[in-house]
């Protein structure tokens, strides 16, 4: 079924269209159009193909083998990243800010954002670990010009750091795959490891070899770097802080999940035979990330950086949940979905606040609800969701993950995480809420916030709330199917 390639081919076609000078004037409208079409196609595929069915693609096409797969994991994350992308596209296309709506920004943003989405969508449906690796790296390359868009020394330095860390991290992940292959060749001469995910189980024959364990370690470390996990996390706060808010949203909500899917598929494949090693590495990286993020949230007075460090905190929680496995996987998936929507709301709102107040310092902003009531509300509800308050989806996801930890007897880990979350809760609340609630300057004018500008954020908050109050049956079935395929019980 060749249609499963459409979520990758449609934005790739859109990116190529930007080479036509005559279309540059309508670039942002095209961006919105492609966002709508891509989400429609992704949801249409999910509607046509049941969650329990896995469709392979490639063997009957010019690429020769089954390089792509449409399964429950692909269904969930294609829908998610394309929904976020549509929100970003709507935000950019309808935005009244003059610096965002110039032709120069418009066509370059459209070209690279669509190229970024093409690679992201193909990476999510990739059935070959090396092809998936190359596509994740392609998303990095498409994001570099977006991060450096402002053409300042600061933005180029952020783009440089992002590219360097990504390249090194992904090189280590690639080295891990080579080690896995080598372990098979040494153990079973004249045999090799197929890098197709559905044939990856040959590695079980060599699970005790040193090369195999080193390979797993490097893959987790490499993809962990791309997720912003400790110890190689320092690129993330700089990049998220420096890039424009729509770009940061693409990185935090789309690229994060694309890398998460790549890591998820590897853990899914090797989890059964290397459970202890994977648990140990992911827990160490996760706890380390939560600790460094908590310290930095306490020390920071820059709201964009605080949200960025909260992203590291969430990545840490997701890594720990993934390491725990079992029933925690349902919570990890729900948390990852919620996390993407929270980041979209918060980073898009942070961009608005920065534009209006001209600062990122929390102690220089007051009276947000007076001057920008909608942005104030988005920041408030987004922060509630960020901190895992009920009734948002993140609360349920966190609860299920914590339940999984207790269920697997990891009470010390559970207690440690509770302490870190409490610290993050107090530190974030102490710095973010005064911006929202404290009285502003006398005579400060209320800023106009057009409805079209608000729609994406309202939609994301609505979905976040829905996930916490009433889980739609098709989504519940999808999450349950992925959890089952991981070996857990929903």
């Amino acid at each position, binding site marked *: 079924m060749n249609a499963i390639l459409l979520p990758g081919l449609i934005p790739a076609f859109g990116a190529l269209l930007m080479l036509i000078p005559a279309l540059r004037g309508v670039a942002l409208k095209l961006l919105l159009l492609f966002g709508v079409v891509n989400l429609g196609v992704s949801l249409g595929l999910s509607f046509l193909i049941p969650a329990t069915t896995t469709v392979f693609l490639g063997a009957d096409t010019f690429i020769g083998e089954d390089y792509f797969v449409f399964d429950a994991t692909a269904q969930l994350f294609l829908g998610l990243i394309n929904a976020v992308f549509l929100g970003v596209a709507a935000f950019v296309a309808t935005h009244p800010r003059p610096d965002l709506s110039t032709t120069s920004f418009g066509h370059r943003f459209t070209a690279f954002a669509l190229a970024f989405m093409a690679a992201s969508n193909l990476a999510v449906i990739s059935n*070959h670990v090396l*092809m998936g690796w*190359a596509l994740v790296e392609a998303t990095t390359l498409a994001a570099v010009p977006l991060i450096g868009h402002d053409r300042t*020394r600061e933005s180029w330095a952020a783009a*440089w750091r992002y590219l*360097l860390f990504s390249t090194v991290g992904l090189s280590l992940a690639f080295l891990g795959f080579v080690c896995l*292959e080598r372990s098979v*060749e040494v153990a079973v001469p*004249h045999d090799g490891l197929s890098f197709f995910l559905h044939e990856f189980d040959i590695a079980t024959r060599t699970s005790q070899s040193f090369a195999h364990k080193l390979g797993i370690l490097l893959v987790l470390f490499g993809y962990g770097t791309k997720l912003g996990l400790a110890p190689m996390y320092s690129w993330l706060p700089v990049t998220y802080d420096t890039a424009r808010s729509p770009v940061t949203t693409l990185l935090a909500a789309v690229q994060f999940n694309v890398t998460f899917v790549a890591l998820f598929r590897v853990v899914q494949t090797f989890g059964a035979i290397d459970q202890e090693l994977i648990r140990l590495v992911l827990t160490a990286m996760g706890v380390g990330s939560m600790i460094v993020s908590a310290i930095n949230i306490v020390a920071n007075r820059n709201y964009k950086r605080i949200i960025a460090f909260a992203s590291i905190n969430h990545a840490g929680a997701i890594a720990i949940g993934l390491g725990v496995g079992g029933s925690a996987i349902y919570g990890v998936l729900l948390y990852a979905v919620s996390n993407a929507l929270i980041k979209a709301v918060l980073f898009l709102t942070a961009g608005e606040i920065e534009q209006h107040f001209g600062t990122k310092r929390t102690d220089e902003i007051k009276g947000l609800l007076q001057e920008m009531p909608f942005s104030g509300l988005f920041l408030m509800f987004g922060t509630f969701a960020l901190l895992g308050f009920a009734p948002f989806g993140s609360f349920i996801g966190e609860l299920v993950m914590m339940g999984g930890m207790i269920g697997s007897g990891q009470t010390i880990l559970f207690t440690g995480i509770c302490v870190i979350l409490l610290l993050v809760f107090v530190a974030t609340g102490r710095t973010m809420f005064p911006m929202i609630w404290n009285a502003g300057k006398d005579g400060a004018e209320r800023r106009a916030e057009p409805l079209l500008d608000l729609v994406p954020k309202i939609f994301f908050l609505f979905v976040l709330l829905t996930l916490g109050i009433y889980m739609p049956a098709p989504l519940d079935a999808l999450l349950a199917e992925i959890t089952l395929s991981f070996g857990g019980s929903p």
Partner: protein
Amino acid sequence: MTVLLVAMLIAVMVPLFARTWRTMFRALGLQGLLLAVIAYSSLGSHADDVAVWVLIADLAVLRGIFAPLFLHRMVEDRMNSAEFELVPSNLVFWGIAVVIVAAALWFGAQIPPFDPVPSLHLGVALSMVLLGLYVLSLQTRPLGQVVGALTIENGVVLLELLLTHHVAVPVELALAGVFLGSILAFGFLLRRLKAPMEAT
């Protein structure tokens, strides 16, 4: 093969001691060309496989010629001195580099199969990865960082050449495309960062 691997080790070590930025680019080019020759030596029996030729072309043309020439062109008019230190030029840092290489070669000899050539192959590849990480840990200057990152990449490719099973044409093309994109991005940013020799 042993001669090629020893030559590769020299191509990795020389820029650590030579202290000029032009030597770094020449060494990177030499590494790419040596990788292509090693690939041809070990995969020549699969000459009917298009993927092997895509790999050799990637190594010779992209890594051996294009990458060093392109990066050289991007920085040449911004370099105000011929000197550039990848590692501080004193016995302590040079000694650490030598210990890293010795440890990698020893490690390569401990991993089965215990044949001299695969062991040396593994040892040299690990030396490249570890030396690349060593350079990255010491460098705050973009030019030095990119050399460290490319040394790691070349080490990973050398390790990949130890494998007897190889990936198909679409994957080789994707990997070559990503490498080309990375070089273009590195060069583009090197050009735009005010001075590649200054710390970021």
